[in-house]
C-alpha cells in the first residue's frame, strides 16, 4: 500500500469575509512526509481540513494521484486523519474504534479481527481491545486514534497536531514511532504542527505558512540554514534582529560601522560558508542570528569575516555549565551564553561569524 501523490494547487479558503488561505500550492511526492508548520491562525489546520474535505475550497484544486477530489465529500477521498482531539468514539471499545473503517469496507469478521489485532500489536496496544476508550490513558488514546487511521491502510495519512495533547516525554518517543511507521508503510503523510522541532525531526520537507500563504517550502536543512524571509528566519529561531547598512561588491558585503557595531566585510553564502543574503545587499538590511551562534569577545577584537556588536552586560545568570548574559546593544537586548565569567556593566563584543547571519534587504520587520 504505497502512498499516493498529493497536489494542492492554488487553494483559497475564506471563512465569511476573512481569507484564511490565499492561494496555496504544494506538490507532495508519494511516500513523502510533509510538515505544515506555522503559528496559530496561519491557516495550517484549515489547509489540512481543505485537503481532507471538511472545508469547502473557494478556488484552486486538490488532486490525489492526478484524480481531482476538490469537490468530493470527505468519505470519498481515501485519506485517513488523526485528529488533535483524537475524536475517538466514547461509546465504542478500542477495538471497535480501530475496526470501524474496516466494517465500513465490509471486511469479513475473521479478517477484520485479525487486522485489528495486527494494528493493535503494531502500536503496542495488545490486550486493551475490550476497554472503552474513556478508560485509556492519553498516550493510549493517541495510539488508538493512529490505529484507527492506519487500520484502513490509507495511502495518505493526515495528522492534525496529534502530539500536542501528550506530555513532553511521551511526545519525543511517539514522534519517532510515527515517523518509523510512516516509512515502514511507505504512505504519504501531511503533519500539521506548531512545534518547530517536531517538524524538523519528522518531516522530509517543511511547509512554513504565514497568514494564509506559504513562506517557504524546503528540507529541514533548507529552512533552518537558508530561511528565505525575515519571517522564516525568526520562526526558525534566528529571532535576534539587528539593522545594518551595507554595500555589495565582488569581494563580499561591506557593512558600514555604526554606534552599535564595527564595520566588516562578510562573505556571501555559496554553499554552506558565508552569510545567507536575500536581496541585493545594498542599503538597509535586517540581520537575523541565533543566540547559540553568537560568541563573546573582547570589545576591541576584530575577527576577520565576522560582525562585531558593541554591547554591555546588564544581567548575568548561571543555568549550569555556562553563564547566560543579557547584553544590551543600543536599545536591543540579546541573550548570549558563554563560558567566561563576566560582571554586570562589562563592555563586550558579540562576535557573529558571517555563516551565522541571515540578511534581508529592505525588508521591514518587527524586531523582537
Amino acid at each position, binding site marked *: 500500500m504505497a502512498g499516493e501523490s498529493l497536489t494542492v494547487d492554488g487553494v483559497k479558503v475564506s471563512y465569511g469575509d476573512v481569507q484564511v488561505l490565499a492561494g496555496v500550492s504544494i506538490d507532495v511526492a508519494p511516500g513523502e512526509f510533509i510538515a505544515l508548520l506555522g503559528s496559530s491562525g496561519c491557516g495550517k489546520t484549515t489547509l489540512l481540513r481543505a485537503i481532507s474535505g471538511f472545508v469547502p475550497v473557494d478556488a484552486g484544486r486538490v488532486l490525489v494521484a492526478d484524480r481531482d477530489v476538490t469537490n468530493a465529500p470527505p*468519505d470519498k477521498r481515501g485519506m485517513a486523519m488523526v485528529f488533535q*482531539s483524537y475524536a475517538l468514539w466514547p461509546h465504542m471499545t478500542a477495538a471497535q474504534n480501530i475496526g470501524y473503517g474496516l466494517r465500513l469496507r465490509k471486511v469479513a469478521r475473521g479478517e477484520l479481527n485479525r487486522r485489528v489485532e495486527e494494528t493493535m500489536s503494531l502500536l503496542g496496544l495488545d490486550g486493551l481491545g475490550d476497554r472503552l476508550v474513556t478508560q485509556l490513558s492519553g498516550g493510549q488514546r493517541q495510539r488508538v486514534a493512529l490505529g484507527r487511521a492506519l487500520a484502513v491502510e490509507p495511502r495518505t495519512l493526515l495528522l492534525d497536531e496529534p502530539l500536542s495533547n501528550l506530555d513532553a516525554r511521551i511526545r519525543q518517543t511517539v514522534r519517532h514511532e510515527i515517523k518509523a511507521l510512516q516509512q515502514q508503510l511507505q504512505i504519504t503523510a501531511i503533519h500539521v504542527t506548531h512545534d518547530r522541532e517536531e517538524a524538523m525531526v519528522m518531516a522530509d520537507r517543511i511547509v512554513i505558512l504565514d497568514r494564509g500563504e506559504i513562506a517557504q517550502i524546503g528540507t529541514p536543512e533548507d529552512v533552518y540554514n537558508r530561511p528565505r524571509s525575515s519571517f522564516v528566519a525568526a520562526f526558525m529561531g534566528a529571532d535576534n534582529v539587528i539593522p545594518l547598512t551595507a554595500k555589495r561588491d565582488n569581494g563580499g558585503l561591506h557593512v558600514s560601522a555604526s554606534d552599535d557595531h564595527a564595520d566588516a566585510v562578510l562573505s556571501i553564502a555559496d554553499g554552506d560558508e558565508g552569510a545567507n543574503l536575500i536581496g541585493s545587499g545594498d542599503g538597509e538590511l535586517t540581520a537575523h542570528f541565533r543566540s547559540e551562534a553568537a560568541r563573546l569577545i573582547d570589545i576591541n577584537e576584530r575577527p576577520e569575516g565576522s560582525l562585531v556588536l558593541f554591547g554591555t552586560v546588564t544581567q548575568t545568570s548561571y543555568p549550569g555549565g555556562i553563564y547566560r548574559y543579557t547584553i544590551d546593544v543600543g536599545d536591543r537586548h540579546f541573550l548570549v551564553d558563554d563560558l567566561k565569567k563576566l560582571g554586570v556593566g562589562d563592555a563586550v563584543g558579540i562576535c557573529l561569524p558571517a555563516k551565522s547571519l541571515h540578511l534581508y534587504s529592505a525588508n521591514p520587520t518587527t524586531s523582537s
Partner: protein
Amino acid sequence: MSNVWRGVVVPWIPRAILLGLFAFAIFGPLANLLLWSVAEVWYFPHKLPLEWGFDFWRQVFKPRGNAMLSLNNSIIIAIFTVIVSLAIAIPAGYALARRNLPWRSLILIAFLLPQAFPSVAVYINVARIFYGFGLAGTYVGVVLVHTVQGLVFAVWIATAAFSAVDRELEEAARNLGASGLRTFMTITLPLALPGIMASAIFVFLISLDEFTGTFFVGVPDVVTMPLLLFNASMEGNYQIASITSLLLLVPSVGFMLFIERFLKADVLAKVGN
C-alpha cells in the same frame, strides 16, 4: 457532619425544623393520598379512616373496568405521542443543532407558541377544527393534541442532545469513509441517545398528565387517566381519585431517577442554546 449548608452555618435545631417542613410539604399530600387509597369508610370529623381495605384498588384493577380502560387509553396515547414527537424531534433537533439554519431561535420559539396562549381558548378552537375533520373524539385527535404540547420539550432537548455531540466525532467517521446517514446512525444517534431517551420519557409523562386538550378533543369517546381522576373527584370518589394519582406518580418518579442516573450536565446545559 458539618453544619455548613451553602456556606451558611445553620444550627441543628432550625435545620431539623426546616428539613421537617420540607418533608411534610412533599410527603404530607402523598401520605394523604395513600390513606385515601386504602380508606373504605372515612368521614368528618374522624382523623383516620374508619374502615380500611383494598376494595377500591380491586375496583380499579378490575379487568374491563373504567379505570383499566382509561389506563390503557392513557398508555396507548402516550406511546403514540412519543413516536410522533420523536419522528419530528430527531430530524428537527439534528437540523437545529448542526446546520446553520437562519431564524434558528425563532424556530425554537415557534415550538413554544402553543404554551404561550391560554390552553382552554386554544383547545376549544382546536376541538372545533378537529370536529370539522372528524378527528374529535378519536385517538388520532388526542395524540395530535398531546404531540403539540410534547414537541416543544422534545425538540429542545433533542437539539441540546445533538449539540452536545462533538462535531469531530462525526468528521472522524466521514473521514474513514462513512456516508452522512451511516455516520448519523452509528455515531451521532448513539451518542445523543440518553438525551433522546430523556425527551421521550418527558413527552410520555406530559401525555400521561395532559388534561385540557384531552377534555375538549377526546371526551366522551376517549377517556384517559386524568379525566377519570377528574370525574372521580367531581363525584366525590376520593379513593379512585387517590389511586389514580398514585398511579400517575410512578412514571414521574422513574423519570427523575433516569435523569439523575443517565443524563449528563453538559446536555442539560445546552437546552435552549
